[in-house]
């Protein structure tokens, strides 16, 4: 999905560049809160952002090279947007994936410099925001168990990938320099990415499950649970005077969640219905078009070859219907995400120094 230079025209590239810059600016502020971590450290949270986000970015970069074999010598790999959002939160997720894209563009010429805005908008922003909003709403609705968190991760990752494809299609419709009909781009993009999304969902859910089993406190969406301190006095354990408890993360805007829950339910329902309705067709396309056909590093699951070359997906109605549902979902998700971000900023911002002044 790394878009090169010249694929999207200059004005639209510029607009997406502005969108990306704004989102990164908001995320820079948001990430400071997210990575503040539990309150046992005296240091205020903001200082933690750079090393943690940097290491998470290095992790995303590395994990994109981890091959997951599919069948008959083919393999896919993680895109990581949803995973990052679930593990470290949406703001940090946006930052990490954006930095990875920036470095890939400058160092490896993977993705054009002028297309950076397009790439960040659809791969960094859309995937993380959609995945996170879905994930949080599902976690709120489902019973508080590990299995729910894993299931929520699955759905969030599943939807996030075709959502990114949809956003790409929208950008293409606005400023594509080639004349491939939008309908074809839409069906091909969303169809193929729905398949990639299934792989992404499975890997993301399994990975989140693995982290959850060892360090549940590291999963952004599932924090809490502390036991009281004890003192060992002459071999006996006695309770120590309690310190200030870690402030619980509270969902600040009930309305947004309510709104999101309905959307998520609709989405989840539609997606699972359609996905199970024609598994054969999906598998076939996966096989024919290749989630990740070659073993080369770059002709991988997110390669434009796979994205655009598909002319007829088995069931156009299926893809189209899904695209519609996802479209609604994305709009709601992005909208409420922005609303949520703005509300939180107003509530939590302190007039501290902002060394990142853009």
């Amino acid at each position, binding site marked *: 999905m790394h878009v090169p230079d010249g694929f999207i025209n200059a004005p639209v590239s510029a607009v997406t560049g502005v969108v990306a810059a704004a989102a990164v600016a908001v995320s820079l502020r948001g990430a400071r809160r997210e990575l503040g971590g539990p309150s*046992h450290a*005296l240091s205020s949270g903001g200082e933690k952002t750079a090393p943690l986000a940097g290491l998470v970015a290095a992790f995303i970069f590395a994990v994109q090279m981890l091959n997951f074999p599919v069948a008959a010598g083919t393999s896919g790999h993680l895109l990581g947007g949803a995973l990052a959002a679930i593990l470290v939160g949406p703001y940090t997720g946006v930052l990490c994936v954006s930095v990875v894209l920036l470095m890939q563009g400058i160092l490896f010429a993977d993705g054009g410099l002028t297309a950076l805005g397009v790439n960040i908008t659809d791969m960094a922003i859309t995937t993380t925001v959609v995945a996170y909003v879905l994930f949080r709403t599902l976690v709120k609705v489902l019973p508080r168990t590990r299995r729910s968190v894993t299931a929520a991760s699955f759905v969030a990752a599943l939807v996030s990938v075709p959502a990114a494809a949809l956003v790409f299609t929208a950008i293409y419709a606005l400023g594509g320099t080639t004349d491939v009909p939008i309908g074809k781009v839409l069906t091909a993009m969303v169809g193929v990415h729905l398949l990639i999304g299934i792989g992404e969902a499975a890997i993301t859910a399994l990975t989140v499950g693995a982290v959850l089993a060892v360090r549940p406190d590291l999963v952004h969406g599932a924090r809490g649970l*502390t*036991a009281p*301190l004890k003192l*060992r006095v002459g071999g006996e354990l006695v309770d*120590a005077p309690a310190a*200030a408890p870690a402030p619980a993360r509270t969902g600040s805007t009930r309305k947004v969640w309510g709104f999101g829950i309905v959307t998520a339910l609709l989405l989840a329902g539609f997606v699972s219905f359609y996905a199970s309705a024609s598994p054969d067709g999906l598998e076939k396309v996966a096989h024919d078009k290749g989630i990740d056909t070659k073993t080369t590093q770059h002709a991988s699951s997110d390669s434009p070859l796979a994205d655009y070359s598909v002319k007829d997906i088995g069931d156009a109605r299926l893809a189209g219907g899904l695209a519609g549902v996802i479209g609604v979902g994305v709009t709601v998700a992005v909208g409420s995400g922005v609303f949520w971000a703005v509300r939180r900023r107003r509530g939590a911002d302190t007039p501290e120094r902002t060394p990142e002044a853009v």
Partner: protein
Amino acid sequence: MTTPEATVNVPSLEVSGLAFAYPDGHQALFGVDLTVGRGERVALLGPNGAGKTTLVLHLNGILEGGAGSVKVAGLPVAKKNLAEIRRRVGIVFQDPDDQLFMPTVREDVAFGPAASGLRGAELEERVMGALAQVGMAEYADRPPHHLSFGQRRRVAVATVLSMSPEILVLDEPSSNLDPASRRELADVLRGLDVTVLMVTHDLPYALELCGRSVILSDGVIAADGPTAEVLSDGALMHAHRLELPFGFDPLSTGASRERAGA
């Protein structure tokens, strides 16, 4: 170092009644009391999981929120003093890759002093001075990941020396070092004129460098005394999962004890 309360009678480090649990619920410290006088070199011994690293992280206020208190040269570790505390307490972490996060050795050593406002020639002097103390001056412009492990460990020591600390805290300084690097580091440490708290499993190293040893076990201080005595108390050692290397007798190496005498 020249602050008014830092007089000779004030110990470098005072820990009392310190308890702490991690956010995942695991409690590591259950009431630690420890005092380290100015200029002393103390070894902190103990089995894996005794809470040694947790204790170290309390010394400069990285961890807090439990019970008890920590004072460095009379100054309590509290939010308002953190900048000064962190200048006074130089922690050398176990993995030099964690400690050396800047692109070149020079920038890494400069990080601390620069963060406290030093610039220009003064900064450069401080950096080169600290690198010279550990014998790494000629590596100033190399990226850290191109150095050997022993060299990286010594640069890590330089990164905190450049801040002229009151107390140097070393977490497993001899781990993963080959014998020559281990000796070179010992020479460097012996030559320093600061209070040292050394967390280690390397008992001969403790005997060689530190006159006094304390054992941290199950989150409390279980023993405190001259290193040779602590190491020769077989029952005490056994009770806390401490074992001397094969063929090593702390009493017959008295010469090194004299040398290390605080």
